[in-house]
């Protein structure tokens, strides 16, 4: 899938969050990293059609994303999105969370949507959790169910917004493993993360944002081994400071 960002800027009430972000590349497994407040989540939300850029355009496979209210639902339906937390619908069981968008948005019959939900629950180790409400699931289970919902309609791209930030280390690894497995089966994703090990070893490419600007972009191995900017060098060295 080809993604092109053309001079993307975003400001909220005069505060500039993103400045002139440009990118053009095939997306496979991309990690967006950077310090807090660098605009990572904002960029992801713009790509996901949840936020309109103040300036600039997004092109997916050559066609420009139309941010008008009546076009966005269709665009968003072609993507999968996982939030940091609370992304599952509170009032629906894990199974219904997966099945409902299939029925309502993608026109799948109720029977088939439930079958597909069952397969996904099995695949993500949630066989016994299907009929539980999100509040009855552990954090890790919630995120796995959210992942299942995100890939249920075979999206062309899955966007993951710090999917493990609200989890303790055990669940973090559990969820990252699942994402890694998804990547291996050819699912394309963009992940905003602070898990540098994951960014380095499970992602092909890395995008480094700093103060709203795209400072570096390249293969993960190149950026980790050979950071060109002082900011990325500092960022990486700080993260490695307390490594066991």
């Amino acid at each position, binding site marked *: 899938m080809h993604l092109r960002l053309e001079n993307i800027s975003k400001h909220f009430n005069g505060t500039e969050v993103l400045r002139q972000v440009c990118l053009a590349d095939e997306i496979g497994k991309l990690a967006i990293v950077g310090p807090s407040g660098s605009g990572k989540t904002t960029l992801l939300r713009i790509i996901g*059609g949840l936020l309109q850029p103040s300036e600039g355009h997004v092109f997916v496979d050559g066609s420009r994303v139309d941010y008008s*209210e009546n076009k966005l639902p*269709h665009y*968003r339906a072609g993507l999968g999105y996982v939030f940091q937390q*609370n*992304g*599952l*619908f509170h009032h629906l069981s894990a199974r219904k969370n997966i099945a409902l968008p299939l029925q309502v948005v993608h026109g799948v019959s109720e029977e088939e949507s439930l079958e597909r939900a069952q397969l996904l629950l099995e695949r993500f180790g949630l066989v016994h959790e299907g009929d539980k409400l999100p*509040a*009855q699931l552990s954090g890790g289970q919630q995120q796995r169910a959210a992942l299942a919902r995100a890939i249920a309609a075979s999206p062309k791209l899955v966007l993951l917004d710090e999917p493990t930030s609200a989890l303790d280390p055990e669940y973090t690894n559990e969820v990252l493993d699942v994402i890694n497995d998804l990547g291996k089966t050819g699912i394309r994703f963009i992940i905003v993360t602070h898990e540098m090990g994951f960014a380095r070893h499970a992602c092909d490419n890395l995008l480094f944002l700093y103060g709203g600007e795209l400072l570096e972009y390249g293969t993960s191995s190149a950026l980790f081994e050979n950071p060109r900017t002082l900011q990325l060098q500092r960022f990486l060295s700080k993260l490695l400071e307390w490594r066991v």
Partner: protein
Amino acid sequence: MVERLKYIAGFFLAPKAGPVPHLKGALNYLLVCVIIIFLFWLSLSAISVTFNFSFLDFYGKRIWDGFVLTIQLSASSLIISLILGALVAAGQSTRILPLRYLCDVYVKIIRGTPLIVQIYLFFYIIGTAWGIDNRFIAGVFILSIFEGAYIAEIIRGGYLSLDSTQLEAACSVGFTKKQTLRYVVLPQMITRTLPALTGQFANVIKDSSLLSIIAVIEMTQALREISATTFQLFECYLLLGALYLCLTLPITFASRLFEKRFNYALKT
């Protein structure tokens, strides 16, 4: 000795955690009821009142009619005020400013003035000017406008308490605005506002008693008239209170039940 006292005191205390045992709960509840009845009886004997409910035989039909009218008034008002409240709650967040401010002013004025003032003003000015002389319709109309303001606030509060991530999640799976409203906002709002709305129904029933001042012969007015002819004031109002409790207690109970049942934030 101290041990024995502790043992007795333990009977009146809820456990530090977990539910109160059934028998203990029931006995303590009974104790409270006995104390209330005793105090009431003490007050009555202090002013040496004896009860005489013989008027019931003669006026039973009128009381029953009043009871039925109270239910009719409250039920009609509840339905209309629900619709009005929902519209006003939606109106308060519309982009059309005159409409938004109209809803805002409405809620502020209605919530800021006593129902009795509204009843007099509406009935004698607006009712007379527009020729609404059917007292039942005027009563339902006034009560609906009054309760509508409170229901609007309940609904607005319910909407504001929705988690913003839930709305974003609805966007992210590709729901249109309509679908978001139908599949996410409404189900979550209903479960959140149902306990409060049910409780509000109990208020509607009690507030309908004030319509007696424009001579709508509902339960309160019926018993006021009876007490005026029989001079059995205490009996009439005691009965009136009991009849209102018959209506409101089950509703309060239902409200609690909804609260428990729909509290899906709790792990069960």
